[in-house]
C-alpha cells in the first residue's frame, strides 16, 4: 500500500530571543540580540500508509504539535523533507489543505458568533463541496456525532464537549482522506470520548480515512491505534505496534494479596524464597503486592505457598497498565527492545 505521509530527516528549530538587563542592555539589544536555539523536532523520519490510525505520543513539550504544524503546512521545516498526499504541504498550501482535515483540541476553527450550521455552510463553500455529496456525507456525520440539535446554536454557547463534536464534523465537511487530530479529547468526559472514538473508527472503516492523532489519554490510543510513534525531546524513541510495546515492557504481573492478619516482609520473603519475587507493601500492612515474571508456574507457585500458610481475604492478579508502561518509558527516556 502506498504511503500517504512520508517524512525524512525532519527538523524544526526555534530561535527565541532573550533581552539583556537594564537600560544599557536594552540599548545593546537594539544592535545585537541574544538568542537561544530550541530544537523542537530533531531529525525524525517515518511514513504512514493509507488507512492507518497512528497514535503520536510523548511528554509535554516533546514536539508533537510542532510536527503536526509542519505536516499540515502551517510551519516551514528548518530542514528535511515532507511529502503528504503526494504534495509538499508548505509549497502547495492551498491545494494541499483541501486534501486534509485538521482539529486542534485547544483552539476553535468555527466562527464564534454565528450558528454552527452557518459555519458549516461557509466551509462547504470554501471547500467547494457539491450539494449532493454534502447532504449525504454530512447527514451521516451529524447523526453519528449526535449534533443535530446543536446546529442552530452559536458556537460560543456550546459546552466544550458539544463544541469538540462540532469541530470534528467541521473538519470532515470535505471528507478528506487524511485527518490530523491534535489532542481531540482534551477535557472531555468519558461518554463524549467514547462517542468520538466510535466515530473515528467508523470513518476509518467506511472511507479508509488515515488518522494521525496526538493525545495524553492512552486509552484513546488503546481504543483506536494499532501503531504508536513515541517522541521524546524531538526524537522518535519508538515506532511500532502498541502490542509490541506492551509485550516488551509489561514483562511481569503483579499479585495483590489482602491478608486477614498482619504480615511482615521477612515472613513473606521466607515463604517464597524458591521464586524470583519482589514484595511491596500496599496501602496497609494487610495488603502486599508480589511482582513476578508472567510465568504460570511462578504465579501458581507463589499463590500456593502463601495461601498454604496465611489466611487471605482477597486476591488479585494485575496486568501492568499501558499508562504505567508509558510512564516508565518517559522516566527512563528510552525504549528497551525485547
Amino acid at each position, binding site marked *: 500500500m502506498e504511503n500517504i505521509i512520508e517524512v525524512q530527516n525532519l527538523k524544526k528549530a526555534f530561535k527565541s530571543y532573550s533581552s539583556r538587563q537594564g537600560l544599557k542592555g536594552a540599548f545593546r539589544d537594539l544592535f545585537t540580540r541574544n538568542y537561544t536555539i530550541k530544537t523542537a523536532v530533531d531529525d525524525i523520519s517515518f511514513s504512514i500508509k493509507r488507512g492507518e490510525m497512528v497514535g503520536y505520543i510523548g511528554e509535554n513539550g516533546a514536539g508533537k504539535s510542532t510536527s503536526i504544524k509542519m505536516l499540515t*503546512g502551517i510551519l516551514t521545516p528548518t530542514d528535511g523533507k515532507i511529502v503528504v498526499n503526494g504534495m509538499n504541504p508548505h509549497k502547495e498550501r492551498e491545494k494541499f489543505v483541501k486534501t486534509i482535515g485538521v482539529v486542534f483540541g485547544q*483552539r476553535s476553527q468555527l466562527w464564534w458568533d454565528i450558528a454552527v450550521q452557518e459555519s458549516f455552510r461557509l466551509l462547504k463553500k470554501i471547500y467547494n463541496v457539491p450539494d449532493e455529496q454534502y447532504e449525504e456525507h454530512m447527514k451521516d456525520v451529524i447523526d453519528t456525532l449526535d449534533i443535530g440539535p446543536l446546529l442552530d446554536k452559536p458556537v460560543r454557547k456550546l459546552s466544550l464537549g458539544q463544541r469538540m463534536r462540532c469541530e470534528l464534523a467541521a473538519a470532515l465537511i470535505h471528507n478528506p482522506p487524511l485527518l490530523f487530530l491534535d489532542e481531540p479529547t482534551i477535557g472531555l468526559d468519558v461518554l463524549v470520548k467514547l462517542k468520538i472514538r466510535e466515530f473515528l473508527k467508523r470513518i476509518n472503516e467506511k472511507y479508509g480515512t488515515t488518522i494521525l492523532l496526538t493525545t495524553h489519554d492512552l486509552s484513546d490510543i488503546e481504543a483506536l491505534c494499532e501503531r504508536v510513534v513515541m517522541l521524546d525531546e524531538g526524537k522518535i524513541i519508538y515506532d511500532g505496534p502498541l502490542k509490541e510495546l506492551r509485550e516488551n515492557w509489561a514483562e511481569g504481573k503483579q499479585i495483590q494479596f489482602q491478608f486477614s492478619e498482619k504480615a511482615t516482609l521477612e515472613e513473606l520473603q521466607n515463604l517464597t524464597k524458591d521464586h524470583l519475587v519482589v514484595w511491596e507493601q500496599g496501602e496497609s500492612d494487610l495488603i502486599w503486592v508480589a511482582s513476578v515474571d508472567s510465568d504460570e508456574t511462578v504465579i501458581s507457585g507463589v499463590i500456593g505457598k502463601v495461601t498454604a500458610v496465611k489466611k487471605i481475604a482477597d486476591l488479585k492478579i494485575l496486568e501492568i497498565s499501558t499508562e504505567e508502561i508509558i510512564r516508565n518509558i518517559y522516566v527512563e527516556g528510552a525504549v528497551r527492545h525485547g
Partner: protein
Amino acid sequence: MGKYMEMIRIRFLMMLAYRTNYYSGILIYSINIGAYYFLWSAIYGGKENIQGLSITQMTTYIAVAWMARAFYFNNIDREIAMEIKEGKVAVEMVRPYPYLNMKMMQGLGEGIFRLLFFSVPGMVIVSLVFPVELSVNLETWVFFFVSILFSFIINTQINLLAGIATFFLFNNDGLIRAKRVVIDLFSGLILPLSFYPMWAQNIMSYLPFQGISYIPSMIFTEGFKGSQVFEALINQAVWSAILIIPVYGLWVLAKRQLVVQGG
C-alpha cells in the same frame, strides 16, 4: 467567488447579531459632525467661502467624510494582530483560501453593513438637523460610490500592512494607533487638504492617504469639477494598484517566518 460572497454574508450576519452596538455609534458620529459644524460656523463668521468651499459645502464635506468613514473603516489590522498573537493564524493556514483576500472580504462585509445600517440612517438624521446639501446629480453619486470603493481598498491595504507587521514586531499596538492618527489627519477627514499649507499639500499629494477621505468627500460636495474628478479617481486607482506590491511582499516574508504560538 462563491466563498468570498459567503464570507461577506457571514460577516454581515455577525454584525447584525450585534447591531444594537451601532445605535450608539450613530449618535457619536452625529455629535462629532455637530461639533465640527459649530466650529466651522464660527470660523466662517460672515464669510461667503474659504478656500473655495461655502459653509454649506463645508458642512456637507464633514458629514459625508464621517459617513464614508463608516464604510471604509475596519478593524482588520487589529484582528490580524490578534490572530497572530493568539496563534489563531494556524487555523487560517489550514484553510484553502488566500488569507489576505479573505480578510479583505470580511472588511467589505463589515463596510456594507455599516453603509446600510449606519451611514444611510445617520445621513438622514444629520441632513434634518444641519444644512447639508445632497447632490441631485446622478453622475456625482456614481462617481462618489466608485470613489469610496477605492477608499475602502486603499484603507484596507494599509490596514493589512499594519496587521502583517505584527509578524515582525509581535506587539504593534503602538504602530496601529499611530497609523490611525496619521490616516485621520492626512486623509482629510478632519480638515480638507486644501486648508493645509502649500508645502504640506505637496507632500501629501505623493501619499496614498488623500484617496481615503478627501477625494470621495470632494466629489460628493462637488468641490471637484470636470476633469478634476477623473484625475482624482485615477489617483485612487493607481494607489490601489501600487499598494498591492508591499502587501504581497510583506506577506511572503511573513509566511516564511511564521511562528505559531501555543498548542
